[in-house]
């Protein structure tokens, strides 16, 4: 009982974090019909800044890191990316009123990763001086890419069966290169590379690091507005998408937390790392996932998967998920 109380008080503190507040502020603005807009180029620049900052920091820290410790979490990430989509295929995609392709694409998006959700969690952990291994953000592609591949594969198998034709060969290689070439992943990887190979300390300390929180707040505001604006699209699709969007992120996050806990016991994976692993799993892709799926599963209705991810999944993952895993880690590991 006391434990539960402590847990909820910890949870409450997290809610005053500015990142969450800006996200909810954006939703509030859109709900009130405000004419405030964040220009497209500013939004794009915010995303670039966050990813470059995450990459640079990771790259600089990895220089001294023991990368062998990364193997188990990377394997877990790949497993999670695949498992989330397969579970989604067997649950959401089979529900009445849910078009199978749409359900598969949605599961794919929830298996993939959101860089902004990850950034929120990193900002919160830094604020609270919680340590995590430098290479944790680099787990991103290990979960993101398999999830997208599995989703596209499952959709093709299903469509081939429907048409009674032989299924088209899924271009796994081209999905991988497309993902790596996406704006999000290529900024992250370039940052890692520059951090690893050059000396960006001064530009990192004078620019990317101090402005991180600020650009994150602008990004959250934009995403909040977007989440509210796209809610209307949800009206045209089955209610199950809302249910899935609300529950799946937390299920995925908790599952990842559990697997992360095992890695903690086995290889000493840090509590901060466990939190971030849960955040990555609980997040759903908002920038680079949708165009990949749109191109590869054109018959799936984007209103369904974008709506459930942007309007339900991401707010839940950020506003409930992130504080939840931190509070949980606090209870389990004592941060």
């Amino acid at each position, binding site marked *: 009982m006391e434990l539960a109380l402590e847990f909820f008080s910890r949870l409450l503190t997290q809610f005053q974090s500015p990142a969450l507040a800006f996200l909810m502020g954006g939703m509030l603005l859109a709900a009130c019909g405000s004419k405030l807009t964040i220009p*497209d180029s500013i*939004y794009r620049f915010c995303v670039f800044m966050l990813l470059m900052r995450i990459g640079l920091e990771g790259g600089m820290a990895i220089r001294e890191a023991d990368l062998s410790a990364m193997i188990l979490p990377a394997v877990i990430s790949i497993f999670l990316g695949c498992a989330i989509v397969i579970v989604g295929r067997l649950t959401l995609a089979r529900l009445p009123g849910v078009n199978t392709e749409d359900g598969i694409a949605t599961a794919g998006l929830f298996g993939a990763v959101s860089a902004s959700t990850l950034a929120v969690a990193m900002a919160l952990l830094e604020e609270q001086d919680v340590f995590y291994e430098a290479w944790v953000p680099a787990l991103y592609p290990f979960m993101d890419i398999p999830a997208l591949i599995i989703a596209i594969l499952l959709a093709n198998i299903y469509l081939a069966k429907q048409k009674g034709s032989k299924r088209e060969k899924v271009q796994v290689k081209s999905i991988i290169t497309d993902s790596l070439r996406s704006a999000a992943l290529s900024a992250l990887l370039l940052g890692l590379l520059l951090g690893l190979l050059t000396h960006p300390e001064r530009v990192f300390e004078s620019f990317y690091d101090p402005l991180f929180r600020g650009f994150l707040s602008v990004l959250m505001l934009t995403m909040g507005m977007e989440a509210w604006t796209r809610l209307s699209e949800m009206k045209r699709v089955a209610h199950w998408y809302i249910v899935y969007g609300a529950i799946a992120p937390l299920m995925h996050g908790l599952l990842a937390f559990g697997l992360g806990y095992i890695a903690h016991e086995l290889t000493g994976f840090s509590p901060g790392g466990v939190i971030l692993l849960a955040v990555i799993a609980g997040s759903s892709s908002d920038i680079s996932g949708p165009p990949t799926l749109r191109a590869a599963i054109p018959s799936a209705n984007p*209103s369904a998967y974008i709506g459930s991810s942007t309007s339900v999944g991401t707010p839940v993952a950020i506003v409930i998920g992130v504080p939840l895993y931190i509070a949980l880690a606090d209870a389990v590991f004592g941060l």
Partner: protein
Amino acid sequence: MDHFKATKVVIITEQMILDQVAHLIENAGARGYTVTPAGGKGSRGVRSTGRAAVIDGFSNVKIEVITGSKEAANRIADEVTERFFDHYSGITYLEEVEILRQDKFALLIQS
């Protein structure tokens, strides 16, 4: 200067398939095309300009191709419609125009 009849094909669709549409246009032998950003409303909801396009590739573009061959114009319009507009939102239409330098709009014979 002499003026000549030609046909303009206009395609308004999702930015995401711009590269594929451009490829189709070039394959049809057209020598060029013009692209402008666009927003709009159609059967699949409002697409806005100005506001942050949080998700890449979902805003509209307007693609215009002028060609001296009415046949090539028809082929482009038909192919785009058949190949893309079951799944992607978009419209296409044709207009008669009067061009100045005929050779700039002559069909390229594909190698």
